[in-house]
């Protein structure tokens, strides 16, 4: 019987905490990029994933992803409700740590992946539709794909490599984002009004948390605290660093100024691209992947306005494009010395298949899910709600109320219901 190793477990628990932290990090990253009136609505689209997807993961998500494979397509129901997921190691996954630790670690991936998609739909997705979408997508799209690649499914058997989720998380979320854009249509005023980030320091804070958490995401995917985890951590970091440079150089050339939002976005693009490669390449290759991701994603995002579609927060340009860059470069740059896999044209071909299959399945399934939700509750807020902003229309809140220094609320007239009731009684 496999035994729990305390060192490996310490690192896996730490990594789990780090990956959990990424989802609120994403909430801040996305929240800072939207207009003030949508900051809370955008934050909520990530925050609620921590609620709905976590619960669903325990109930059915984990078993569909990592239960004994049914024909390479989906996991069986052995682990339904975390039945049989205990303190002893699993026989198949992360065999030196508690099965519960592995299941928890994977839960955090299941939470953040659908949350990533919401960036494409920002500033117009209804909250009730968001909740339904996150839940349905995590079960119907994420779980199968995780199974295909990591749970003993057909893509993994084919030999596709994905260290920490380049296809399962990023290409998948990016393709789903594309479907969301198609279904939702453009925001009111898109292309004519200024949609500028309302709080860039918040964007940086979010990106910093993402970067920090990504050490858990990638180096944690070694599922042990040894050389492979160290290699993945180094690669993760230098790819992110190089991608900042990769983004800022063409940005400076084209717009005369390297921007802060660009640096933050470039770092995320590098982190996305290194995700599938982190445990397969050497540091110099990670630098190349980072540089490439920064540049290619910059070009993708810079091109966007010409294409006329409205990917509010560039999920396609960063996660789909960056994910593809990473998946393909992994096929070429993998070095056997790192983790036993050597890049080759054959491997590249397999990676192309994995990417294509992911895009096709994710786009189609997401499109169907959104159409179904649209038929039931409507995916898009009403026009007046969009003008008022998601914060007021979906949540009856505003992000900031600064204007009260020196006295009571200036713009807010305060009659809490209960006080009014009391008033009426007198």
């Amino acid at each position, binding site marked *: 019987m496999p035994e729990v190793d305390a060192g490996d477990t310490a690192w896996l628990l730490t990594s789990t905490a780090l990956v959990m932290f990424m989802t609120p990090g994403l909430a801040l990253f996305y929240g800072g990029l939207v207009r003030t009136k949508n900051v809370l609505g955008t934050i909520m689209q990530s925050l609620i994933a921590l609620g709905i997807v976590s619960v669903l993961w325990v109930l059915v998500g984990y078993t569909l992803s990592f239960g004994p494979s049914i024909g390479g397509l989906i996991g069986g129901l052995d682990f339904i409700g975390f039945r049989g997921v205990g303190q002893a190691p699993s026989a198949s996954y992360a065999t030196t740590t508690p099965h519960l630790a592995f299941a928890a670690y994977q839960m955090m991936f299941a939470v953040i992946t659908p949350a990533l998609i919401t960036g494409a739909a920002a500033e117009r997705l209804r909250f009730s539709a968001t909740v339904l979408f996150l839940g349905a997508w995590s079960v119907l799209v994420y779980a199968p794909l995780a199974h295909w690649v990591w749970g003993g499914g057909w893509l993994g058997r084919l030999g596709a490599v994905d260290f920490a989720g380049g296809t399962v998380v990023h290409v998948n979320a990016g393709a789903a984002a594309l479907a969301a854009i198609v279904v939702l249509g453009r925001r009111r005023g898109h292309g004519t009004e200024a949609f500028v980030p309302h709080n860039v320091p918040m964007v940086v804070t979010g990106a910093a948390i993402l970067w920090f958490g990504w050490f858990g995401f990638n180096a944690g995917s070694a599922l042990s605290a040894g050389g492979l985890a160290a290699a993945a951590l180094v690669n993760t970091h230098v790819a992110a660093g190089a991608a900042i440079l990769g983004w800022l150089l063409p940005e400076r050339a084209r717009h005369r100024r390297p921007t802060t939002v660009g640096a933050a976005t470039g770092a995320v693009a590098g982190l996305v691209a290194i995700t599938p490669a982190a445990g397969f390449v050497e540091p110099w290759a990670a630098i190349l992947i980072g540089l490439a991701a920064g540049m290619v994603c910059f070009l993708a995002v810079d091109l966007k306005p010409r294409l006329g579609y409205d990917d509010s927060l560039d999920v396609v340009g960063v996660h789909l494009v960056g994910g593809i860059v990473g998946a393909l470069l992994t096929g070429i740059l993998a070095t056997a010395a790192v983790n036993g896999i050597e890049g080759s044209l054959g491997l590249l071909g397999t990676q192309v298949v994995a990417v294509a299959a992911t895009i096709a399945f994710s786009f189609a399934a997401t499109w169907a899910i959104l159409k179904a939700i649209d038929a039931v509750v409507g995916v898009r807020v009403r026009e007046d709600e969009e003008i008022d902003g998601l914060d007021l229309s979906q949540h009856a809140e505003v992000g900031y109320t600064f*204007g*009260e*220094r*020196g*006295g*009571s*609320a*200036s*713009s807010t*007239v*305060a009659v809490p219901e209960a006080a009014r009731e009391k008033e009426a009684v007198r």
Partner: protein
Amino acid sequence: MKLVTAIVKPFKLDEVKEALRSIGVNGLTVTEVQGFGRQRGHTEVYRGAEYQVDFVPKVKVEVLAEEDQVQPVVDAILKTARTGKIGDGKVFVTPVDQVWRIRTGEMGPDAI
């Protein structure tokens, strides 16, 4: 037509607004401003440097009113905005040539 402008303490805004509403004023416009006057500001300290801040937060309330409404409006403000402490602010009246309601194009008294 006249414009009545009042500079008042921020925490008096609600009371002023309610008083005006109760005498039939249907609209007003509020701006956050900084006042300088007899009322002292305050000192701020950051890493060993002391700064004297002379400005005090105030709100400006503007009410377009017909001639015969001016005095009631002024009186309502004078009454509700007063704390008796320095810095209560000012009320002043300025002439207005004409007013339009944008929604309908109505002019004059009908516009307010």
